[in-house]
């Protein structure tokens, strides 16, 4: 028959445990009464991968004194105290990251004045362990969950047939006209996704726009030139464009030489694209992705060759340059809604609607935060701090 008592098997250990605790308490009481008047506390550092113990020390002298303090550590198995490197008397909170996981450690503070040596109460045993959840990021998890709920909720709503309205975005409406312009002029379209690698969301959004653009260029038989900064983006772009051409019914028109790798040097890339623009004189330039200092160089050169330019980036600094130098600019999140806007996919439009409601929630929280700041409700601000 199973013994269902929760502490079955430990019954005989209880009196021994109590005795040990009593002796330990008496011993430590005796030592602290005659030892250093400091309070030492050691805990496993929370919310970390382990191999770390946090110590707090109270009662150390604020001004310089003649007592030399040392923090000592011992593994319970070794029973030999060693000096902890890196601690100084100014550290009232100290993280000892020179420990191993699963090992019991004891700590004690040693004070030496001339020949007189005193010790604080021994603290421990304390064990360092890695945690499986960072509790300081609970608010982030909650935020992510709310975002997911909003976006997924509207996606599911869209699947049921609900039509969502998205306001006209001039830059995206102009893409069709821009492609038509290049077709009529008999000139190519230049596409650039900037310096972003494939792990950047702006580059993914750029690939989404590329698919729509490529489908139209396939229909109109307009050359599409896409010099790449990153080889992974090049490989993805070739696949995207080929599929777009196949979808348009013109797979034979796909020319992989038009989508090529140039260089991973920022200004080398800018020089290459500028050279392509001045030699091939594209009628339309499309800049969608992550751009840095080369943004204005590209846009101004494109302007000088008379190309119609549409740009969109996630960089606020380069956005200002694009606004000045380009005919149309997608500002901020307009770049990310492009795929839904151009394809009219109901699920993507649903996610855009969810995004809009999240923005409204953010505005509400900012207003409440402003009021909380005025009223001194610091607890509200702390809700949004991230560990």
């Amino acid at each position, binding site marked *: 028959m199973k013994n269902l008592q929760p502490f079955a098997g430990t019954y005989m250990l209880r009196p021994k445990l109590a005795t040990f605790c009593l002796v330990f308490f008496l011993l430590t009481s005796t030592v602290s009464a005659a030892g250093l008047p400091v309070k030492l506390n050691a805990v496993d550092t929370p919310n970390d991968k382990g191999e770390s113990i946090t110590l707090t020390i109270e009662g150390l002298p604020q001004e310089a004194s003649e007592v030399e303090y040392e923090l000592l550590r011992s593994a319970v198995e070794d029973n030999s105290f060693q000096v902890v490197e890196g601690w100084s008397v100014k550290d009232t909170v100290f993280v000892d990251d020179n420990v191993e996981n699963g090992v019991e450690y004891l700590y004690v503070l040693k004070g030496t004045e001339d020949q007189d040596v005193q010790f604080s109460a021994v603290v421990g045993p304390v064990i360092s362990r890695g945690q499986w959840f960072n509790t300081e990021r609970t608010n982030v998890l909650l935020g992510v969950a709310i*975002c997911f709920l909003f976006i997924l909720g509207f996606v599911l709503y869209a699947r049921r047939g609900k039509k969502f309205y998205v306001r006209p975005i001039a830059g995206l409406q102009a893409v069709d006209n821009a492609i038509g312009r290049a077709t009529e002029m008999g000139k190519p379209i230049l596409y650039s996704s900037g310096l972003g690698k494939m792990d950047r969301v702006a580059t993914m959004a750029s690939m989404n726009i590329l698919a729509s653009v490529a489908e139209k260029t396939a229909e109109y038989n307009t050359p599409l030139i896409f010099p790449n900064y990153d080889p992974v983006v090049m*490989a993805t772009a070739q696949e995207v464009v080929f599929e777009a051409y196949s979808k348009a019914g013109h797979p034979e028109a796909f020319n992989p030489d038009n989508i090529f790798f140039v260089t991973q040097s920022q200004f*080398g890339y800018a020089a290459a694209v500028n050279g392509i623009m001045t030699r091939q004189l594209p009628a339309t330039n499309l800049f969608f992705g992550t751009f840095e200092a080369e943004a204005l*160089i590209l*846009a101004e050169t494109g302007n000088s060759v008379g190309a119609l330019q549409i740009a969109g980036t996630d960089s606020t600094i380069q956005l200002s340059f694009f606004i000045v130098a380009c005919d149309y600019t997608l500002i901020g999140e307009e770049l990310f809604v492009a795929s839904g806007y151009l394809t009219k996919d109901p699920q993507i439009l649903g996610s855009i609607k969810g*995004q809009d409601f999240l923005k409204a929630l953010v505005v509400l929280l900012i207003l409440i935060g402003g009021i909380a700041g005025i009223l001194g409700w610091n607890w509200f601000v702390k809700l949004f701090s991230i560990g």
Partner: protein
Amino acid sequence: MSKKHEMARRIPIIVCFVFGLFMLVQFFVPHRLSGAAYETVLDWMQIVFVFTLLVGAISYAKLNVKKVSRTESGWGYNAIGLVGLAVMVILGLWKGTGEETPFLWMFNNVQAPMQSTMFALLAFFVASAAYRGFRARSWEAGLLLVVAIVVMLGRVPLGSFISHWIPDAANWILRTPSMAAKRGIYIGIGLGTISTSLRIILGIERTYLGGK
């Protein structure tokens, strides 16, 4: 769509979902095992990158060789590009890429000055863009022009020489209305990033695979 094609599309979506979910969960798990798995994924990304760099270099070489062999318009530039690629590869493999090597000399004395030259062009492009952008054709453009003048003067000693209010006004413009607008854009970008990432992880957005 054939079964093979269907599988070829389904597997990347599943892989994307698994790894997207893993990276999301990893952010909240500080345990050593989670960190080790994250580092492994980063290493895999580096390995994938190296192979695609090879693909990119081969693509670059093929394209330029084709243009040179056909003596297409501007083939001289393609030839120079090929020579540069070959020289750097040979120098790097032959003498290494460390200090005092011909490879590093070429980089410091050819590549770096050329990059600086391109960067220097930015000054002239900023001037031409500013000339076009700050023409006061409307009241908004006029306001932009006035603000631009205040901020530009506030950033040079001349501004404080004219009046101590100019640098103060410039700093206020950058710290208050400009910062507010920037933050608004950042919020939009952040939400757009979340939405796009979620669509990609869940397979709603499949354009990176080449459409539906």
